[in-house]
């Protein structure tokens, strides 16, 4: 009986036309490269029995040919029409379907004209941050050029570099420098190269060998140049041996297998793991520990930092690694940029505090106007 009633209700509902979708609006998609329009509408009152909405496009004038632009399912009230011509006028209608029946209000939207934009308005917050940072950056650069004193706190992992190289030399063992799985297009790899230069110079001073196995061939080339430069600075270009900076393979675990092999056979006294690392980080660090080497690691991969902290003697955590080149060279220009970073940090902390207070106020007063800062920061 209930079954019968149900099917009857459905039958009745279906044989009626669903209420049409109303208030159809179309406008150019903001912040895009052109060629697309966004269509929005108010859902049909019978949305719960609607099967789909059909979006109909009319090009040129409201009484032109009607073409189906696409379908969306019930509950959806917007559609993005793509592959359109910039500058052309487009009109839209939304047809509401319930099984075989449909209805539409017969009214088309006002015309929309797709255009490309010259500025991404959603990214204005990023631009502001960049401008403020840029201003601070150049301000402190100028101060540094004028000779203002710059101070940097002690970073244990970087202090230990000379000690590690020295100890390795005392034991008569080579130094192993691992740049990880980063490509040259990864900033941590470039930070790793900056530290490599210092290590190479120290190694040259002590006449120690330095081995650099590589995952990426372009990084290998850059590492060869970097080590050569380090040896030149130490005044020992004669000791430079390019074949010690070699390529292994572009396979994550193949690289780990190869580096492990080098570790157990060459028995380096000091191992540096500086760059971008993934799951192989612990394979390398544990093998390095098992041969008794002193290990200094550093990476910006947050998921791998715990393993480095556990398995190596010193670890440069995230930003500390980027600070390394300034720290090691004490180059005033580079140090000045650290000062700019620090000011930014204070600004961000202030911003977070303000944002948190605003959100709290918004929730207590129930005034959504206080969400403005949070809304301002939503970008994509």
């Amino acid at each position: 009986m209930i079954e019968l009633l149900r099917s009857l209700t459905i039958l009745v509902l279906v044989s009626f036309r669903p209420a049409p979708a109303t208030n159809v609006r179309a406008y150019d998609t903001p912040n895009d490269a052109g060629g697309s329009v966004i269509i929005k509408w108010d859902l049909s009152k019978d949305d719960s029995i609607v099967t789909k909405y059909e979006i109909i496009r009319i090009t040129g004038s409201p009484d032109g040919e009607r073409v189906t632009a696409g379908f969306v399912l019930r509950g959806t009230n917007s559609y993005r029409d793509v592959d359109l011509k910039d500058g052309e006028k487009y009109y839209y209608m939304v047809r509401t379907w319930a099984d075989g029946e449909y209805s539409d209000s017969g009214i088309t939207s006002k015309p929309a004209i797709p255009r490309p934009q010259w500025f991404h308005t959603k990214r204005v917050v990023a631009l502001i941050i960049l401008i403020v940072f840029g201003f601070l950056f150049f301000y402190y650069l100028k101060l540094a050029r004028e000779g203002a004193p710059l101070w940097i706190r002690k970073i244990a992992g970087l202090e230990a570099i000379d000690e590690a190289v020295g100890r390795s030399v005392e034991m008569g063992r080579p130094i192993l420098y691992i740049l990880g799985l980063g490509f040259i297009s990864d900033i941590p790899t470039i930070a790793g190269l900056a530290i490599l230069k210092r290590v190479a110079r120290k190694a040259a001073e002590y006449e120690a060998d330095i081995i650099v196995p590589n995952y990426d061939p372009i990084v290998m080339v850059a590492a060869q140049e970097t080590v050569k430069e380090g040896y030149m600075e130490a005044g020992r270009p004669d000791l430079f041996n390019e074949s010690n900076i070699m390529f292994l393979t572009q396979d994550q675990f193949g690289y780990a297998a190869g580096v492990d092999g080098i570790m157990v056979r060459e028995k380096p006294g000091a191992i540096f793991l500086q760059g971008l690392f993934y799951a192989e980080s612990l394979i390398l660090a544990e093998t390095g520990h098992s041969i008794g080497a002193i290990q200094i690691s550093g990476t910006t991969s947050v998921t791998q930092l715990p393993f480095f902290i556990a398995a190596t003697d010193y670890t440069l955590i995230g930003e500390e690694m980027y600070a390394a080149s300034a720290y090691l060279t004490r180059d005033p220009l580079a140090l000045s940029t650290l000062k700019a970073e620090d000011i930014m940090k204070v600004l961000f902390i202030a911003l977070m505090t303000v944002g948190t207070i605003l959100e709290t106020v918004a929730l207590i007063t129930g005034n959504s106007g206080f969400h403005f800062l949070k809304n301002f920061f939503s970008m994509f």
Partner: protein
Amino acid sequence: MKYIEKLAKIDRRIIYLILFLTVLLPYLFKISLPMKPLPEVVQAYREIDRLPAGSVVMISIDYDAASMPEVQPMLYAILRHCFSKDLKIIMLGHWPLGIPLGIAALEDVAKEYGKKYGEDYVFLGYRPGVAAVMINMGKEIRSVFREDYWGTPLDSLPMMRNVHTYDDIAILVGFEAGSTGDYWVQYAQARYNQKIILGGTAVVAPDWYPYLQSRQIVGLIGGLRGAADYENLVHHKALAYYGMTPQAAVHILIVIFIILGNIGYLALRRRK
């Protein structure tokens, strides 16, 4: 006293050996923990179980060898379930290096159940462009895959004759190790209302619970635990099911090692 101090310096090889045995022995002796299948896995099982024979299930291979131990058992379990219910299978993938893994499993299980290629299962393979593939299949599968993986035109395969769009596919099962699953939900579900079940590694699966709540997916199989539950449900206990015991045992073992190490370390420190 000396023995206690030794606890601080257990040779790593001894740790390795004990760990290896902890993984191996539960398999050899088929020791298993009593486990109640997770509701989201049961839901996935029921969705497939109630499909009428002859329905088409589409399976997507979006992982590669690195996530094989977690995801491959799910694939086997689902394939067994589908073939035992006489469902038809279309397999494809978005990770080129996972394709060989998918095909190996499909051929294995098909042989087990005596299924015929082209009539009971089809392998489409890989086409570049994740979102484009998903969207275009909503219009016509042939617009993306004119031929199957072996180069046979789809129309000459009996089971594909009436399969054109998502409307002809009862359920889509995505096996994931990255963000491809989100694309499936975004394109196949949101645009074409395709029923979706997702299975994936323990790392990616937790992100899908919101989909489950909003009914955008009708089942979720996460990590080795999810695979174990599914194996349990289809009564074919294998890698994952018996793997749960070593899984728990090793976690506890590592904690025990940490504690032993600390006791030894403390003893050493006291003497100093």
